[in-house]
Protein backbone atom coordinates (compact mmCIF):
# COMPACT_ATOMS: atom_id res chain seq x y z
CA UNK A 1 0.00 0.00 0.00
CA UNK A 2 1.39 3.38 -0.91
CA UNK A 3 1.12 6.23 1.54
CA UNK A 4 1.58 8.78 -1.20
CA UNK A 5 -1.44 10.75 -2.26
CA UNK A 6 -2.59 10.56 -5.87
CA UNK A 7 -1.62 14.23 -6.22
CA UNK A 8 2.00 13.70 -5.10
CA UNK A 9 2.25 10.69 -7.40
CA UNK A 10 1.05 12.72 -10.33
CA UNK A 11 3.48 15.53 -9.51
CA UNK A 12 6.30 12.99 -9.47
CA UNK A 13 7.37 14.05 -5.98
CA UNK A 14 9.42 11.45 -4.14
CA UNK A 15 11.03 11.86 -0.75
CA UNK A 16 13.52 14.28 -2.31
CA UNK A 17 10.59 16.61 -2.98
CA UNK A 18 11.46 16.85 -6.59
CA UNK A 19 10.64 14.48 -9.35
CA UNK A 20 11.75 14.36 -12.91
CA UNK A 21 12.90 17.98 -13.15
CA UNK A 22 16.64 17.24 -13.45
CA UNK A 23 16.14 14.48 -16.00
CA UNK A 24 13.64 16.47 -18.04
CA UNK A 25 15.60 19.74 -18.19
CA UNK A 26 18.70 17.77 -19.19
CA UNK A 27 16.73 16.49 -22.20
CA UNK A 28 15.20 19.87 -23.04
CA UNK A 29 18.58 21.63 -22.95
CA UNK A 30 20.13 18.73 -24.88
CA UNK A 31 17.71 19.18 -27.78
CA UNK A 32 18.23 22.94 -27.68
CA UNK A 33 22.02 22.51 -27.75
CA UNK A 34 21.74 20.10 -30.67
CA UNK A 35 20.28 22.97 -32.72
CA UNK A 36 22.43 25.76 -31.24
CA UNK A 37 25.65 23.71 -31.45
CA UNK A 38 25.19 22.85 -35.11
CA UNK A 39 24.27 26.48 -35.88
CA UNK A 40 27.47 27.61 -34.13
CA UNK A 41 29.74 25.27 -36.09
CA UNK A 42 28.12 26.06 -39.45
CA UNK A 43 27.99 29.81 -38.83
CA UNK A 44 31.58 30.08 -37.65
CA UNK A 45 32.87 27.98 -40.54
CA UNK A 46 31.62 30.68 -42.91
CA UNK A 47 34.08 33.26 -41.60
CA UNK A 48 37.51 33.86 -43.07
CA UNK A 49 39.99 35.93 -41.05
CA UNK A 50 38.94 35.16 -37.45
CA UNK A 51 40.53 38.43 -36.31
CA UNK A 52 38.85 40.54 -33.65
CA UNK A 53 37.15 42.93 -36.07
CA UNK A 54 35.50 40.09 -37.99
CA UNK A 55 34.43 38.26 -34.81
CA UNK A 56 33.02 41.54 -33.47
CA UNK A 57 30.91 42.10 -36.58
CA UNK A 58 29.80 38.48 -36.59
CA UNK A 59 28.82 38.40 -32.89
CA UNK A 60 27.12 41.80 -33.18
CA UNK A 61 24.75 40.70 -35.92
CA UNK A 62 21.30 40.63 -34.25
CA UNK A 63 20.54 36.99 -35.08
CA UNK A 64 24.00 35.79 -34.06
CA UNK A 65 23.83 37.80 -30.83
CA UNK A 66 20.51 36.19 -29.89
CA UNK A 67 21.89 32.73 -30.67
CA UNK A 68 25.06 33.41 -28.65
CA UNK A 69 23.01 34.52 -25.63
CA UNK A 70 20.83 31.41 -25.92
CA UNK A 71 23.97 29.30 -26.33
CA UNK A 72 25.57 30.79 -23.21
CA UNK A 73 22.54 30.24 -20.98
CA UNK A 74 21.69 26.78 -22.34
CA UNK A 75 25.31 25.57 -22.22
CA UNK A 76 25.65 26.69 -18.61
CA UNK A 77 22.32 25.07 -17.68
CA UNK A 78 23.13 21.73 -19.34
CA UNK A 79 26.63 21.83 -17.87
CA UNK A 80 25.31 22.48 -14.34
CA UNK A 81 23.10 19.39 -14.60
CA UNK A 82 25.92 17.22 -15.98
CA UNK A 83 28.65 18.30 -13.55
CA UNK A 84 26.15 17.98 -10.69
CA UNK A 85 25.80 14.24 -11.41
CA UNK A 86 29.58 13.86 -11.61
CA UNK A 87 29.98 15.62 -8.23
CA UNK A 88 27.24 13.49 -6.67
CA UNK A 89 28.98 10.34 -7.90
CA UNK A 90 32.58 11.12 -6.97
CA UNK A 91 32.67 13.75 -4.21
CA UNK A 92 31.88 12.29 -0.81
CA UNK A 93 31.44 13.72 2.64
CA UNK A 94 28.59 16.11 3.38
CA UNK A 95 30.71 19.26 3.59
CA UNK A 96 32.77 18.73 0.45
CA UNK A 97 29.79 17.55 -1.56
CA UNK A 98 27.59 20.54 -0.67
CA UNK A 99 30.52 22.89 -1.26
CA UNK A 100 31.20 21.37 -4.68
CA UNK A 101 27.53 21.51 -5.65
CA UNK A 102 27.31 25.17 -4.62
CA UNK A 103 30.52 26.04 -6.48
CA UNK A 104 29.20 24.20 -9.53
CA UNK A 105 26.10 26.38 -9.65
CA UNK A 106 27.85 29.65 -8.79
CA UNK A 107 30.67 29.24 -11.32
CA UNK A 108 28.34 28.26 -14.13
CA UNK A 109 25.95 31.13 -13.48
CA UNK A 110 28.93 33.52 -13.29
CA UNK A 111 30.15 32.26 -16.67
CA UNK A 112 26.69 32.60 -18.21
CA UNK A 113 26.25 36.15 -16.88
CA UNK A 114 29.71 37.18 -18.11
CA UNK A 115 29.02 35.69 -21.56
CA UNK A 116 25.62 37.40 -21.87
CA UNK A 117 27.12 40.77 -20.86
CA UNK A 118 29.90 40.37 -23.44
CA UNK A 119 27.40 39.64 -26.23
CA UNK A 120 25.20 42.55 -25.15
CA UNK A 121 28.18 44.89 -25.18
CA UNK A 122 29.09 43.78 -28.68
CA UNK A 123 25.53 43.88 -30.02
CA UNK A 124 24.42 47.15 -28.41
CA UNK A 125 27.67 48.98 -29.06
CA UNK A 126 29.04 49.93 -32.42
CA UNK A 127 28.88 46.60 -34.19
CA UNK A 128 30.43 47.72 -37.43
CA UNK A 129 33.75 46.82 -35.85
CA UNK A 130 35.31 49.87 -37.50
CA UNK A 131 36.17 51.52 -34.21
CA UNK A 132 38.46 48.68 -33.16
Amino acid at each position, binding site marked *: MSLRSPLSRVLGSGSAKEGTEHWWMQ*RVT*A*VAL*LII*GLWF*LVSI*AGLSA*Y*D*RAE*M*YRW*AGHPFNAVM*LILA*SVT*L*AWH*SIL*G*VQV*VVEDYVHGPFLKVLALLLNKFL*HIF*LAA*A*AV*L*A*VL*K*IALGDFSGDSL
Partner: protein
Amino acid sequence: MSKDERPLSPHLSIYRWPITMTLSILHRMTGFALSIGLVAYVVWLEAIAWDVIPYATFYAISHSILGQVVLLGWLFSFFFHLCNGVRHLVWDTGRLFEKHQTITSSWIVIISAVILTGSYWLFF
Protein backbone atom coordinates in the same frame (compact mmCIF):
# COMPACT_ATOMS: atom_id res chain seq x y z
CA MET B 1 37.86 -10.87 9.61
CA SER B 2 39.14 -7.50 8.56
CA LYS B 3 37.26 -5.40 6.09
CA ASP B 4 39.75 -6.15 3.29
CA GLU B 5 39.37 -9.92 3.45
CA ARG B 6 35.64 -10.06 2.95
CA PRO B 7 34.50 -11.57 -0.30
CA LEU B 8 33.36 -8.97 -2.77
CA SER B 9 30.64 -9.23 -5.32
CA PRO B 10 31.94 -9.21 -8.90
CA HIS B 11 33.03 -5.74 -9.92
CA LEU B 12 34.40 -4.07 -13.04
CA SER B 13 37.60 -6.15 -13.25
CA ILE B 14 35.73 -9.44 -13.47
CA TYR B 15 33.76 -8.69 -16.64
CA ARG B 16 34.87 -8.74 -20.24
CA TRP B 17 34.99 -5.08 -21.28
CA PRO B 18 31.89 -4.35 -23.37
CA ILE B 19 31.84 -1.60 -25.99
CA THR B 20 28.75 -0.09 -24.33
CA MET B 21 30.81 0.55 -21.19
CA THR B 22 33.41 2.44 -23.23
CA LEU B 23 30.66 4.62 -24.68
CA SER B 24 29.17 5.30 -21.27
CA ILE B 25 32.53 6.38 -19.83
CA LEU B 26 33.35 8.44 -22.94
CA HIS B 27 29.99 10.21 -22.70
CA ARG B 28 30.81 11.41 -19.21
CA MET B 29 34.41 12.28 -20.07
CA THR B 30 33.50 14.25 -23.20
CA GLY B 31 30.71 15.99 -21.29
CA PHE B 32 33.15 17.09 -18.62
CA ALA B 33 35.69 18.16 -21.26
CA LEU B 34 32.99 20.31 -22.86
CA SER B 35 32.25 21.89 -19.46
CA ILE B 36 35.91 22.95 -19.34
CA GLY B 37 35.47 24.14 -22.94
CA LEU B 38 32.66 26.38 -21.72
CA VAL B 39 35.29 28.42 -19.85
CA ALA B 40 37.29 28.86 -23.07
CA TYR B 41 34.10 29.87 -24.90
CA VAL B 42 33.40 32.59 -22.33
CA VAL B 43 37.03 33.82 -22.33
CA TRP B 44 36.79 33.99 -26.15
CA LEU B 45 33.63 36.15 -25.94
CA GLU B 46 35.26 38.42 -23.33
CA ALA B 47 38.30 38.81 -25.57
CA ILE B 48 36.11 39.82 -28.52
CA ALA B 49 34.03 42.22 -26.43
CA TRP B 50 36.66 43.97 -24.32
CA ASP B 51 40.09 42.81 -25.32
CA VAL B 52 40.81 42.63 -21.56
CA ILE B 53 42.31 39.26 -22.26
CA PRO B 54 44.00 40.40 -25.49
CA TYR B 55 42.27 38.81 -28.48
CA ALA B 56 45.65 38.50 -30.22
CA THR B 57 46.90 36.32 -27.34
CA PHE B 58 43.78 34.17 -27.52
CA TYR B 59 44.22 33.86 -31.28
CA ALA B 60 47.90 32.92 -30.97
CA ILE B 61 47.25 30.27 -28.32
CA SER B 62 44.35 28.72 -30.24
CA HIS B 63 46.47 28.56 -33.40
CA SER B 64 49.51 27.02 -31.70
CA ILE B 65 50.01 23.27 -32.07
CA LEU B 66 48.88 22.60 -28.51
CA GLY B 67 45.87 24.89 -29.01
CA GLN B 68 44.90 23.06 -32.19
CA VAL B 69 45.16 19.68 -30.46
CA VAL B 70 42.91 20.90 -27.64
CA LEU B 71 40.43 22.40 -30.14
CA LEU B 72 40.36 19.11 -32.06
CA GLY B 73 39.70 17.32 -28.76
CA TRP B 74 36.78 19.63 -28.02
CA LEU B 75 35.43 19.19 -31.55
CA PHE B 76 35.50 15.41 -31.20
CA SER B 77 33.99 15.71 -27.70
CA PHE B 78 31.19 17.84 -29.12
CA PHE B 79 30.32 15.45 -31.94
CA PHE B 80 30.67 12.36 -29.75
CA HIS B 81 28.53 13.83 -26.97
CA LEU B 82 25.98 14.95 -29.58
CA CYS B 83 25.75 11.54 -31.32
CA ASN B 84 25.64 9.58 -28.07
CA GLY B 85 23.16 12.13 -26.73
CA VAL B 86 20.85 11.34 -29.62
CA ARG B 87 21.32 7.64 -28.74
CA HIS B 88 20.18 8.45 -25.21
CA LEU B 89 17.14 10.34 -26.54
CA VAL B 90 16.18 7.29 -28.61
CA TRP B 91 16.51 5.11 -25.49
CA ASP B 92 14.22 7.55 -23.66
CA THR B 93 11.45 6.51 -26.05
CA GLY B 94 11.98 2.89 -24.99
CA ARG B 95 13.55 1.76 -28.25
CA LEU B 96 16.80 -0.08 -29.16
CA PHE B 97 17.39 -1.58 -25.72
CA GLU B 98 18.21 -5.12 -26.91
CA LYS B 99 21.82 -6.15 -26.28
CA HIS B 100 22.74 -6.51 -29.96
CA GLN B 101 21.08 -3.16 -30.73
CA THR B 102 23.11 -1.33 -28.06
CA ILE B 103 26.30 -2.80 -29.52
CA THR B 104 25.35 -1.77 -33.07
CA SER B 105 24.39 1.75 -31.98
CA SER B 106 27.69 2.02 -30.08
CA TRP B 107 29.62 1.55 -33.30
CA ILE B 108 27.33 3.86 -35.23
CA VAL B 109 27.99 6.59 -32.64
CA ILE B 110 31.78 6.08 -32.74
CA ILE B 111 31.98 6.03 -36.54
CA SER B 112 29.63 9.03 -36.93
CA ALA B 113 31.59 11.07 -34.38
CA VAL B 114 34.92 10.32 -36.09
CA ILE B 115 33.56 11.08 -39.59
CA LEU B 116 31.88 14.32 -38.45
CA THR B 117 35.00 15.47 -36.58
CA GLY B 118 37.28 14.63 -39.49
CA SER B 119 35.15 16.23 -42.19
CA TYR B 120 34.52 19.40 -40.16
CA TRP B 121 38.19 19.74 -39.30
CA LEU B 122 39.25 19.35 -42.93
CA PHE B 123 36.45 21.59 -44.25
CA PHE B 124 37.14 24.21 -41.58
